[in-house]
């Protein structure tokens, strides 16, 4: 199953490695990724594919010290629809 994530991470040289390492190790394959820098932060939009529930990844990414925000996009859409 495909999932889309949006992350706001600290602008540090190793931050991409951190995010991608956790993604791979927790069993998710990156199929698409975009990044851009914005002030002190870097914004990442990542599409991943896995059999596993996306929360197994988003919970681990949220835990990273350099990850300031991690949103699963489908969840966000559902939340907005509920408003």
């Amino acid at each position, binding site marked *: 199953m495909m999932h889309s994530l949006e992350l706001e991470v600290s602008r540090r040289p*190793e931050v991409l*490695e951190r995010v991608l390492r956790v993604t791979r190790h927790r069993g998710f394959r990156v199929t698409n990724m975009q990044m851009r820098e914005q002030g002190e932060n870097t914004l990442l939009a990542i599409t991943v594919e896995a059999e596993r*529930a996306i929360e197994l990844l988003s*919970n681990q990414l*949220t*835990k990273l010290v350099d990850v300031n925000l991690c949103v699963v996009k489908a969840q966000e859409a559902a939340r907005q629809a509920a408003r």
Partner: protein
Amino acid sequence: MTETKQEQEQDSQTKQTRGADAVVKVLAAHGVDRVFGYPGGAIMPIYDALYDGEVEHVLTRHEQGAAFAAVGYARASGKTGVCLATSGPGATNLITALADALLDSVPVVAITGQVPSSLIGTDAFQEIDVLGLSLSCTKHSFMVTSVDELIPTLYQAFELAAEGRPGPVLVDIPKDIQVAAMEYRRPLQPVTALPAAAQTDLDKARALLAEAKCPMAYIGGGVGMASAVEPLRRFLNQTKMPSVCTLKGLGTVPGDDDLYLGMLGMHGLKAANLAVQECDLLLVVGARFDDRVTGKLATFAPNAKVIHLDVDAAELGKLRQPDVAIAADLCEVLPALSGDLDIQPWRDQISALKAEHRWDYDHPGELVYAPAMLKSLSEKLPKDSVVACDVGQHQMWVAQHMQFRRPEDHLSSAGLGTMGFGLPAAIGAQFARPNATVVAVSGDGSFMMNVQELATIKRMGLPVKILLLNNQKLGMVKQWQQLFFDGRLSETDLSDNPDFLLMASAFNIPGRSISKAEEVNEALDEMLSTPGPFMLHVAIDDGFNVWPLVPPGAANNEMLDKMEDK
């Protein structure tokens, strides 16, 4: 008035210094009285700063020994352990112990020297990408890229190592930053509050507890790490809920609690596993459904609803979907869930189960029976004592047959299962608790993995006791070969072991060797009463295996009982 005082204090702490001196000052400011390490080229300025003695340094004989000593120090005391190493091989030698600290949630700060900034990325002498190496074996890591970042980074490292779910944090410091001139200024310390539990979740959890007819508490190492042992004990006292512990949770529940069934899992007590399989509500406290605990996950506690309490939200739902999940401070949550439970028939069933599956120490024959010996050791140890294990059969016998007063008294490499953990962890524990009786229980395989630390015992004059169980085998692997690999004993024979007592004597450590059950009592007394270090070498039969056992891939109610041991 207060503000002026604070400003004065701040001013008095602002002065010109070197990066390396600032490192030592930050250590002292965090109450670190002792660090463990090994010098080398890229960390020489920090060793120069240590020479002034503001923080004491313990020279181990291998960086892995230093890092495990820091782990032992942290686990025996609850404080953050600190280790130092140089760049390249020094840093890579720390990795195993950092991984161990990550899996067992141990607060450790590792400081590594790095080649000068201008040489990073040039394949310089003793250069390796330590930040890159650290990513998968630390909670967080830093490479300091400017001297202005040095002090805030170190403060953040200490904060991160201890807050929330603790873990190892690495700070890599290039040599030019260690020698750079700077002003020492203490940064403002952030205060990280633990998350609070939502009232609705507490209400749901209370409702599940009230409905349950057969609840079990499954208690892990998180309780000790959260300093929640007393709240947990009060909770169990008030609810009279039966409980089991993980390997890391041992010592959390008093051994004389009638409704405590001991360790669960692969080598747990049969009663503990059966009770969990039968329960209708599992209260998971600071534990994480490790595969060595659950056996076949799909059949673990199959009829139970689950309340999962852990400070790390990423553990909730990772392996077993909970009915109620609460990521909050256990010290706050446990009292909020406490109350009377109407479960007397279940308590009676637990008591019967416990009585039915008691350990049998009545072992015929002249040879030393390790479980009985460890039970005797447990009974003989003074109140203030620490047991540091290695990994293998002896580790499981310690977990099964010894009682611990608190989690800090039992140091065992639970998550990573690192052979070589025991001796350096015991050294760290002895420094953390100088008046405690510290016993390293090891096996002949594990002991050789960090045997160089006998030199640290000698150098520092430590009274560490070593109980070495020698079956001339890599016993746990051999056991699995016997059970699951048709008895093909591939590379598990260690009958060419060195003379361990002779080796100990080379480090001025006296000792004694026994092989008969009748010698155990007196030999343990001799070990414990001899001032200074002592090695008790115990030759045990290689036919003894660890029982009971949940075979890999089986459910926990399919435990194998003792088979063909001699």
